[in-house]
């Protein structure tokens, strides 16, 4: 069965690749485009380790077909920093020690960006419920929440 030709934009740059019809966007990112920052933790949309932004909207890339990316703007963890300048969310995660093994971290950072893009001053409860779709087994979430609070303050210029 022939592959589908997908034309899309990833992290602000045009991207073209071939995908099998049943292939997920996550697999295309990782295996075809060599963008391995997005992770597979479950393959069923329950862990959030594969989180990407689809036209700014938070989605699980394992639940999206690669072919569906055509004509859209995808943002992955690789596109969060500005060249070698870390995003305030990334800096906040580092300074708060909000990662231990780091496997869930790309998903959390992408999810956090989606949150702060639409809610620049979230409460702790809003943060926790927004991030409920991202599983972490190492940290117990405490330092992750603190990092998000710090990042939000930094981004508001406070």
């Amino acid at each position: 069965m022939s592959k589908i030709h997908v034309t899309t934009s990833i992290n602000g740059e045009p991207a073209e690749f071939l995908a099998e019809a049943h292939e997920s966007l996550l697999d295309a990112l990782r295996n075809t485009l060599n963008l391995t920052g997005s992770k597979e933790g479950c393959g069923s949309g329950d862990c959030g380790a594969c989180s990407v932004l689809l036209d700014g909207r938070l989605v699980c890339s394992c639940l999206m077909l690669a072919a569906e990316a055509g004509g859209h703007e995808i943002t992955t963890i690789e596109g969060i920093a500005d060249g070698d300048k870390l995003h305030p969310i990334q800096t906040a995660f580092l300074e708060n020690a909000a990662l231990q093994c780091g496997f869930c971290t790309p998903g959390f950072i992408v999810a956090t960006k989606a949150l702060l893009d639409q809610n620049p001053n979230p409460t702790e409860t809003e943060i926790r419920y927004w991030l409920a779709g991202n599983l972490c087994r190492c940290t117990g979430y405490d330092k992750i929440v603190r990092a998000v609070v710090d990042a939000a303050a930094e981004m508001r210029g406070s």
Partner: protein
Amino acid sequence: MTFIGNKSDLRVVGTRPVRPDGVDKVTGRAVYGADATMSGQIIGKVLRSPHAHAKIISIDTSKAEKLAGVKAVITAADIPNIPSEEAFVGEGPMNFRDLSLNCMARGKVLYEGHVVAAVAAISDTVADAALQLIDVKYEVLPHVIDVEEAMAPGAPILHDDLFTAGMTPKPTVASNVAKQVRFTIGDVEAGFKQADVIIEQTYTTAPVHQAYIEPHACVAAIAADGQVLITASSQGHFMIRAYTAKLLGIDIANIRVTNAEIGGGFGGKTVVYLEPLAVALSKKSGRPVKMTMTREDVFRGTGPTSGGTIYVKVGATKDGKITAAQTIIKLQAGAFPGSPINPALMCAFAMYDLANVDTLGYDVVSNRPKVAAYRAPGAPISSFAAESAIDDLARKLGMDPIDLRLKNAAKQGSKTVYGVTHGVIGYEEVLNAAKAHPHWTAPLGKNQGRGMATGFWFNIGGESTGGVFINEDGTVSVVTGSPDIGGSRASMAMMAAEVLGVPYEKVRAVIPDTASIGFTHVTGGSRVTYATGMAVTQAAQAVVEDLKKRAAMIWDISPEAVEWKDGEAVPAGANAGGFDPLPLAAIALKAGKTGGPIGSEISVNAQGAGPGFGAHICDIEVDPETGFSTILRYTAVQDVGRAIHPSYVEGQIQGGAVQGIGWALNEEYVYNKKGLMDNAGFLDYRIPVASDLPMIDAVLVEVPNTRHPFGVRGVGEVPIVPPMAAVRNAIRGALNLELFHLPMSPPRIRAAVDAAKMPKAAE
């Protein structure tokens, strides 16, 4: 180097710098197991048994082999049939033959998910199609899952050659009970006779998975000359090397394992599942083979920890002195022997100074995946029961639960049930810190309750290698053999920077492959900061001695006349000469002229690791109508010896506590009547999410272990020991309901509420 008693003498240790591998991890650049590739690689996948217990009558792989794009198909016939060989390895006693059979079934499948064959093909799609073409004929056998049922007469027997060890006379009939063990001190019968109050109860826990977010993954290649390269994520690349060598009969020197970053382990990645298969597939196909597990594979095929039944009896006189404690524990080992029954028995009452203790345990096989280590293996299970019983005892006595524990607290000089007298420990300090914490006396509302519980873990030392090398520009490379699961690169760099007297930013810590550094035992057992830290510290000290000698050469004076201070060589006194201090960078510049490269690699087998104690306080609100629990507040106090990097120490405590909360409230394997797991995914195997939890207040108490130059005690495992009883005791406080079975999920709480015929919360 002697123990540095005064914290204020430390410059780097105790601060909170950013970890050196942090940027890679927040930008997605870090390479985890599934991110690693080898040129020319093909994809390997496994075929798993759909039955909980069955004989393999035949496996026909011919159709799969003929499928275009399939490069190799393997079964047990392609794996050496190694003899039974028992040994004590990283996570505990193991039989290598069992490990081999667990990786690839031979003759019989012993659990749903047991691997029976594997394929390697040019793509995932072709590999999946090939698996469908493998025809396995099974003779389904009756299965048994539950530990009591597996022990009952007439239960389906998993192994015809398994006879219960530790029984006299030796049994002649095969059993599912692999062994029976007992630890006893004093006379519990006499002790119970002295008691005014006795609590006696049976508890059960369900098996729970470590649930690391990263599924197992590796890529392996064997060349025509038999040399093997593996890149895998694991808790020990030396362990991967050793087990692959053992299972496949390869010389260890012919295997080189590169450590990929690991996405969580918690004990579950101290064994192999994929690597021997990937090498065998590579051998047959002539190509590198990449294998990754799906989440379903992880649940159906990898070791959770045991579930079990725990009987506890404790007795005390009315003033609160515990006179006797007894427990009988039956633990599920899964398909092959090896549940953590010894530590479960040893840890149950290790927090208390008791004269009369009797602990009896059984290691029982059943048709489930073989258990693997999980954070303080065995102790969380026995402590759930023991600490619940102690709490019920406190209430029956009308005593505050912390006061009851203080009255019976283990201290230096207390003897444990396993006969060892405690040295300097921090249990009383931890209890007093918990009691003084504002959480303990904060007000509670309706349907809200507070519980506390304590826990103990030995922590281990073991073999580690650490190297410290001075670069030509005076910056420093630290190398160790310990995979970094939780930020240990930071603490290694910090300890080296402290000893050398240089800024932390000038020290970089890396983890090279198994051919490039000396042997190092797994990252687990709460041992890395202790044992690997000890190796790094000793290597840094050796480098300092060498730097002094080089300075002496540069100044042309005797080495005895040189001291090392704040990263510089200085003359020892006015008599040594009026030399300006020589910074490390200046000495490094002249390394060649003064004798050659400056560096030291030290291997240790660190002994005398200090045990840790924790005390947790949990506030919970339970809705009696729905059985739903909300954790309102959680405080975890722990003796950490000395915190090298307090943020990562807090992180270990918070993470372990939350795993315990999940174990307490939701996590379990749900089996259907065929012995197949119904909830093999993160939707229905429910681990805690951010919205389930409040902040976790981690309180670090420091009672240093002076056998380590910086006073370190292991911290990673203790925090998972207290939570289940703390949560259970909090639920009891909220609803006046004693629960004895984990998890305390909403249906179970609802059933308990109904059973107690409580009035609904309608006022």
